[in-house]
């Protein structure tokens, strides 16, 4: 039975870790493309999940259509935030803390809006696939968990490829690294930033749709999700999608092992002590880079 316990704990750790990473993707994207710490990232997930839930339950749309519209709503929300608010902050040359305050404020506003429009109840989305259960190494594996793991890994590679190999991805990064330099070689910095927020919104919505069959979504869930995503992203070096996965897995597995070996009471203490230690010895994160200069 010990094998079952270990494998179940590891599976739980990997699944949770990738949930952290999914939110971390959006945080990494927005930081990479706009140098903004996006505290409302979790709310993008909540909005995406709630939209899909409403479309499925109240309108009876097929799942794939609802999922697409859910992602579009994330994209629209991201674009709205950038065009209406962030542009103004940039034009006024707002200091860094203004952005942080702003995203905190918007996160609270969105959370309140969800409460107002959709009520207090938690909503569970149906799992992807047929809801099968597999027994692997004496651990119970849900089909949805496999989808989550698979899609997370695909997203990770896709994002990495996008930012390192495609012109658009490189332009989005360049626009944040040096806005003036980017403008002088023909990059529309403002448009790149809007696209960054659109990407962040879509990633958030995807995360919400994948997470919500496991964790019921409600107006309260946004901020804890954001914090988890941040931990994963920072641990992984903040702008690297590969890092978000590495960071998320480290946190998730560490948590599961602590619960398995010690007691649940020590979960947070051990996990965050571990995080602090890693950040002390590797301040740029697990996969952060050695140097960051503008040339």
């Amino acid at each position, binding site marked *: 039975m010990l094998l079952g316990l270990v494998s179940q704990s590891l599976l*739980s750790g990997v699944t949770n870790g990738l949930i952290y990473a999914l939110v971390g993707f959006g945080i990494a994207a927005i930081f990479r493309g706009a140098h903004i710490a996006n505290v409302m990232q979790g709310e993008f997930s909540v909005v995406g999940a709630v939209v899909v839930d409403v479309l499925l339950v109240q309108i009876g749309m097929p799942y794939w259509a609802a999922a697409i519209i859910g992602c579009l709503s994330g994209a629209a929300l991201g674009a709205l935030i950038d065009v209406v608010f962030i542009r103004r902050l940039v034009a006024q040359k707002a200091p860094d803390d203004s952005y942080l305050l702003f995203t905190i404020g918007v996160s609270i506003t969105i959370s309140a809006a969800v409460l107002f429009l959709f009520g207090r109840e*938690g909503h569970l989305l149906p799992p992807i696939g047929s809801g099968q259960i597999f027994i692997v190494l004496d651990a119970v594996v849900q089909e949805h968990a496999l989808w989550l793991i698979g899609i997370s890994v695909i997203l990770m590679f896709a994002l990495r490829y996008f930012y390192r190999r495609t012109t658009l991805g490189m332009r989005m990064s360049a626009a944040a690294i040096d806005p003036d330099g980017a403008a002088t070689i023909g990059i529309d910095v403002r448009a790149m930033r809007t696209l960054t927020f659109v990407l962040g919104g879509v990633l958030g919505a995807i995360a919400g749709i994948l997470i919500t069959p496991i964790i019921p979504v409600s107006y309260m869930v946004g901020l804890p999700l954001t914090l988890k995503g941040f931990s994963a992203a920072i641990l992984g070096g903040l702008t690297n999608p590969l890092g978000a996965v590495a960071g998320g897995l480290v946190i998730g597995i560490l948590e599961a092992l602590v619960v398995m070996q010690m007691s649940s009471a020590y979960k947070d203490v051990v996990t965050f002590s571990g995080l602090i230690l890693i950040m002390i010895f590797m301040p740029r994160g697990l996969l952060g880079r050695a140097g960051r200069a503008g040339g």
Partner: protein
Amino acid sequence: MRRIDRTRLVAAASGLALLGVVGPVAAQTNASDPIKIGVILPLTGAGAGLGIPSRNGILLAEKQINAAGGIKGRKIKVVIEDDTTNPDAALNKANNLIFGEKVVALVGPIQTANTVAVGGITAPVKFPQVALGGLGPAVELERKCVFHAAPPQNQNARAMLAYAKSLGVKNAAALYDSGYGTVVWNQLSKFAGEYGIKFGVTEKFEIAATDTTPQAAKIRASQPDAIFVIGVTGVPVRAIRQLQMKQPIIAAIGQATYEIVKSMGDAAEGVVFPEFLVPEDPLPHQKAFVDAYKAEYGRAPKSIESIAYDALKAMSQAIGKAGPEAGNEAICAAMRGPYSGNSTEYDFSAPDMTGIKLNGFIYSKLVGGHFNRLPFKNAE
């Protein structure tokens, strides 16, 4: 000169005399002002699942009391505050209600920590308070004006253990939260032996945890006969069933609401609760409440609503008995005694400030998302 002086003296004296009469009356309420009763509930935060139904029960009770003429011809008015499931906030609201709004009694809070915090200011001045959670730590035993409308955790524990024993359970596991779950667990471990039950693997989780799979995995590995679950969300029950554990789940009353049951999804099937009200099949004396609640809110009430309803009605009755202006101690004394509630028979003079007996519990089992009343009943 002397005449003016005397007139002034008489005027001043009359004024003072008038103040002496009118003063204390003005400081209290006008005879036609409503009697204010404070209510502290978790309307937001993790406890909202209990707070909001409780509010519904209280508002229904208020409506019925006023429709029947109120207390001695005066209407009652409940002043409801949200403690956001936080003890500091509860303390804050209590201060506002007692010293600001000048309520004559307090209903709530629900959470143990919040109740103990508020009791810290009501107990010393013997302010009458009826909490909606069960008796908590030992200090509450001394607080002879803090009553409880929900069973103490030792009774909850015994009720769960008695049912488990009836199933023939010998080895059990427990999955409980870091809040009232821990308090109930302490009682479960204390009395388990009396029912011939031994607890093996027992795991704790954070109140608002969204995932309890690792803890459930450890329980699964121990292969118990039954699993006791104490929390305020559907998360632990889901975790247990997702790991394909088929053992019976005995859950504490805190999870017996339609909302929480809905969030359990399919995992809810077969879970048993010791509680007080099954609206699909109410005890004869409960039917009136169930019908009134359905008429008012368009849906069925559960134990939580009923307990809150009983709390306000009991306290109003005590205020009526002592008189609204009688002061703290008198209202307290009037509260101390038996009360036939909609939920169950109380005796607020009992040492545990509740007086619910084990045979005052009914048991329900979830079948297809609906509560079914089980024939099982305790002896004593």
